[in-house]
């Protein structure tokens, strides 16, 4: 574990992992972590925390073949690298959303409320939303894509996108004071929540 000794990496490890050091500072941390197990482990801890802040890109678009240094190297060694399935049609949007959501979350406190079932097959779902009503995040264990609709006005906000363990939708839109949001399968309402601020 970490050691309080000033000889070992401490705060610099956190700054390194967050990308807040200049290049000379990074090189110093790298050298120290290469020479000392305690420092390497302290740095690894900081890296593991920062890695959890990073949102993975969505796996859907094929990698444009060749043209990149890494693929060229792989091809040269004929190791049969074909990472195409890992990349990424909506990656760009997802990453843009990541930063926006992160900023929103860091700036504001948020509230959350569970959806109430309207049908026997309603999924468990929850709305997380900004106290100032500037964004809404819906999380559900629904296996299939459901539509998220704002009432009144029957305004479709989007579709829950399934991922490994749940489906979600983030929208940066103004919410009204007592915003009603429904989850629907087609036109059929499954669950509803009223967002009170």
């Amino acid at each position, binding site marked *: 574990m970490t050691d309080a000794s000033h000889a070992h990496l401490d*705060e610099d490890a956190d*700054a390194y*992992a*967050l*990308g*807040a050091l200049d290049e000379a500072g*990074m090189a110093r941390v790298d050298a120290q*972590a*290469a020479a000392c*197990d305690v420092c*390497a*482990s302290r740095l*690894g*801890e*900081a890296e*593991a*925390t*920062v*890695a*959890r*802040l*990073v*949102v*993975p*890109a969505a796996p859907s678009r094929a990698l444009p073949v060749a043209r990149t*240094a*890494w693929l060229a*190297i792989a091809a040269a060694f004929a190791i*049969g*690298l074909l*990472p195409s*399935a*890992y*990349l990424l049609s909506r*990656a*760009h*949007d*997802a*990453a*843009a*959303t*990541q*930063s*926006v*959501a*992160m*900023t929103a*979350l*860091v*700036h504001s*406190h*948020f509230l959350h409320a569970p959806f109430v079932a309207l049908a026997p097959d309603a999924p468990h779902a929850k709305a997380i939303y900004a106290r100032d009503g500037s964004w809404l995040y819906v999380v559900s264990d629904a296996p299939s894509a459901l539509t998220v609709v704002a009432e009144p006005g029957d305004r479709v906000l989007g579709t*829950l*996108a399934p991922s490994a363990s*749940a489906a*979600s*939708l*983030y*929208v*940066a839109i103004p919410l009204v004071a007592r915003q009603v949001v429904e989850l629907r399968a087609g036109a059929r309402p499954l669950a509803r929540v009223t967002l009170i601020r």
Partner: protein
Amino acid sequence: MEWPISTIESSASRLEPAFAARERWAFDAAYRAYARALYGAALGVLRDHGRAQECVHDVMARLWRGPNPYRPARGSLAAFLTVCVRNEALSRLRRDRNRARIDRSLAVEERADEAFGDPLERERVARAVAALGDEQRETILLAYARHMTLDEIARERALPLGTVKSRLSSALRALRTTLGKDQI
């Protein structure tokens, strides 16, 4: 096809020493297993699909050719690679003279409404960030979301460098404690 998470986890203990020893299969497997996280890390900073791809590939190529500072004492290979790619992306962003253009494009993208990441993990992270003290939260926001260095934060907030550094460090430590506790 995506690898099942369990496969990635069970192979990490084999993968990590092999990656440190620069074995070819380990680079291949690491790339396959962590590509999404790595692209996410690069894209979050560079906001450009092509530049993000290039950044990931260049980092993998650089580590393959050496020097490769990863060793098992450092812990998670996935975390190491993620930070490595993100730091490279930040270096590229900072070298880009035309930073204003990038900041503007960020503003335009605020209408983005696609889903992202694992929502439960997002919620855990959001809670942990919300639970930080105001000074910690502001400092980590400037570093993580606005991509500022310690020096830049110190200048913008008119604070001593040491203060910025310890706020950043205590913020990350607090996140580590909360997230560690919440881990499934």
